[in-house]
């Protein structure tokens, strides 16, 4: 390869990298919130934000590898059945490159870790005062929600907006996975153990509860809907249910 081509060809690689990075950034920012279920809690908001941040961080890295690979396919390929001559540069080591590669990937990993551990702390925190306790029981193949303090049991989940909910989750037969797809939280429902989960709904409207742990024949149909209502509507609903279930 003539030396005159060197700079030119690497410039092409750089432009390819910039183009691919730009495409990656557009996808990173645009895609997650449009593909994922509507966010109805801070946890879900944080999840989507984290996906965007990680994608933005990953885009230039992926674009770099792809740019080199595409460049190799355009400029360094030897076609035909005859064996190519040995490459002009028989490089075995490049200390600077190796060290900077390790440093760069370490720094990137440290950034992801710091973000991730911070996000985890935020995700686990945010427990508001006076949380609403909801007992969740999974069994093949339905969910039952009960509201301690009242005698209400319901196959659908009704939650008040703006109040932290503490879920106490267990299972009767096999392990199920309790997941609120719009709130970015899930934990298994285990037999003989209670697991806990908390989140604060911040949007009114409907959401889905799906089982994420394979639980037998009708696993695909272990779905129920939930609704986030205003605190006033919630009190009314709870009172009506309590009366109806007493009767």
């Amino acid at each position, binding site marked *: 390869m003539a030396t005159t081509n060197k700079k030119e060809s690497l410039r092409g690689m750089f432009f390819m990298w910039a183009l691919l990075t730009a495409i990656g950034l557009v996808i990173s920012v645009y895609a997650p919130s449009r593909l994922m279920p509507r966010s109805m809690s801070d946890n879900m908001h944080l999840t989507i934000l984290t*996906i965007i941040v990680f994608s933005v961080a990953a885009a230039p890295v992926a674009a770099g590898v792809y740019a080199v690979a595409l460049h190799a396919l355009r400029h360094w390929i030897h076609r035909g059945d005859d064996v190519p001559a040995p*490459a002009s540069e028989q490089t075995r080591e490049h200390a600077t490159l190796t060290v900077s590669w390790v440093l760069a990937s370490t720094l990137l990993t440290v950034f992801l870790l710091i973000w991730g*551990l911070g*996000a985890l702390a935020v995700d686990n925190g945010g427990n508001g005062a006076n949380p609403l306790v909801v007992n969740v029981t999974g069994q093949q193949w339905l969910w039952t929600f009960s509201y301690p303090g009242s005698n209400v049991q319901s196959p659908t989940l009704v939650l008040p907006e703006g109040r932290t909910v503490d879920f106490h989750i267990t299972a009767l*037969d096999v392990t199920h996975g309790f*997941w609120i797809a719009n709130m970015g939280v899930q934990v298994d429902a285990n037999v003989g153990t209670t*697991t806990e989960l908390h989140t604060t709904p911040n949007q009114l409207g409907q959401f889905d509860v799906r089982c994420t742990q394979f639980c037998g024949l009708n696993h695909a149909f272990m*779905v129920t809907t939930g609704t986030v209502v205003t605190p006033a509507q919630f009190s009314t609903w709870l009172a009506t249910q309590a009366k109806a279930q007493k009767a």
Partner: protein
Amino acid sequence: MTTTLEHATQAPAKGGGLARRQNFITAMIGGVVFAWLGWFLAHHFLDSSSRSYSDLVTTSLTIGWIFGFWLGIGALNGPGRWLIGADHTRADDLYYAGENQGRARYWKYCTDHKVVGVQYIVMTAVLLGAGGILAMAIRTELIVPGNHFVNQQIYNGFVAVHGMLMILALIVAVAGPWANFVVPIMCGARDMAFPRLNALSLWTLVGAAGLLLSVLAVGSLTMGWVVLAPISDQAGIGMDFFAMSIVVFTVSTTVAGVNTICTVMTMRTKGMTLARLPIFVWGSMIAAALGLYAFPYFSLVEAQTLMDRNFSTSFFVAGGGGTGWLQANLFWLMGHPEVYVILIPAVAALFEIASVMSRKPVFSYRTAIAGMTGLAALSILVWAHHMFTTGWAPTLGGPFMLTTELISIPTGLFFLVIIGTLWRGNIWMKQPTLWLFGFIFNFIIAGITGIYLSDIPIDNQLHGTMFVTAHFHYVFVGSVLFGAIAALAFWYPKVTGRFLDETMGRISFWLVFLGVQVTFLSMFISGLKGMPRRYSSYSLIFEHANVLTTLGAYMIMAGMLVLLGAVVRSWSHGEPAGPNPWHANSLEWLVPTPPPLENFDVLPVITEDPYNYREELVQA
């Protein structure tokens, strides 16, 4: 035993009685007869009203199967003769190495590492084929919502057995054929350190595969390939078949792993220092060592499951003092290292291919070794990321997130090595190279989506969804399978003396490559939209993504069928390749094709590593 230097000239001994008539057929007969015996004894002596009666009968039957299979194939002949003081003679050893037996040796308990390698290719194809047919059935069921191609029970079974077959297929896909066929030659050895154990590992795998395939015939197993406790309690006797097949399979992997390590450590020829080893030998050895750590957990967890079912031991039964979390921990203590047992040989083969094809040394050879070793070491500390959402030990979330994200550093080194090797190379565009570039594209996607899942806030949303399924299919199909096919295309001429058909190979590549993108990118979308895994049916919002996934899956199947056609056709009709078609310098290319029994007339002496692509060596 086969390291003696004098070359045998005596004719193979005649006769030899029953022991020399043993082959796959007698193994099947032995297996079936002893399985029947196991069933008969258990059935006759056990109380049929007991709760675990059907499990005990099944376990007895499966033990009978594997014992009979070993007896029938001749696995016990050598140890038996040694025990009574009538050890194999040199003539016996040559007979068992398949000398002058033509194609018949491929059906026998053959100790020649090259025969075992070819047998592993066939076993991989059988397991991949069976798993692939199930994948097609799964995707056909899911092509539109509410489709009823098969009933739900059968569908759930297909999902589980597909997973089990494919995991086994990929564990052996690179290490099986190539750690056996080429690694001993690469080291300059006449065979593996323990040729009989080599045959044992292969035929034990065949026995285990028999048990695993039987799962479909005995009412299936519908609980996903991990079969977590306590739902495993609800499984029928398919669970006993599966658990026993894994216990048997781990015997095979252990024997094979010990053999690979001992071969590399003790059988290298003069001058073949560790620093001159081809990088694929390093990869095979590191993966084998990791397998020795990981698979005992697999054996243990399935043996405990068997004991719970057969003897009411309640290791994993919540009501009896056990816990399903113990089962999950043991399973993933195996399950995560196993991913790298599968991945590392494929990556190591691609290092080799990148070097030979671009006519440059492996870039930063020591970094490649450090990357593989680091990955193996880290992989034993990350298992609980599979359990982030189980509720087990939430305080360990942070630490396991840390170890998991550290994985991206050694993985990044793989890219450094491959990119650095290709950099300004004269890259020969042949089939292995094509699959290498496909691997680069897919492995980036696999790696990045893995980082999302290692992050707990994201995992709390995406765990248990199709996003996870898409991620690990980019690892297993997009990366490992691509590496395995590249390795096949690369070493195929050494096995058969012919090239793998280039046109068919390229058609196959494009079908599989595009198929993988269509299938698994759309699967990421259904996962992000919120579709859980292992669903037999789904709501309308997931329809578009699923239609695409199914169409992509058909493309992959079409591509794999073309590849199968190429492999079968080229075996006898391919373009002749000569002993060193890629003009490589590692020892397997410097012996004749096909390599003779015991590989070398005179053992070579090594003075440098195989990556000096100087003009004079290229003549070879």
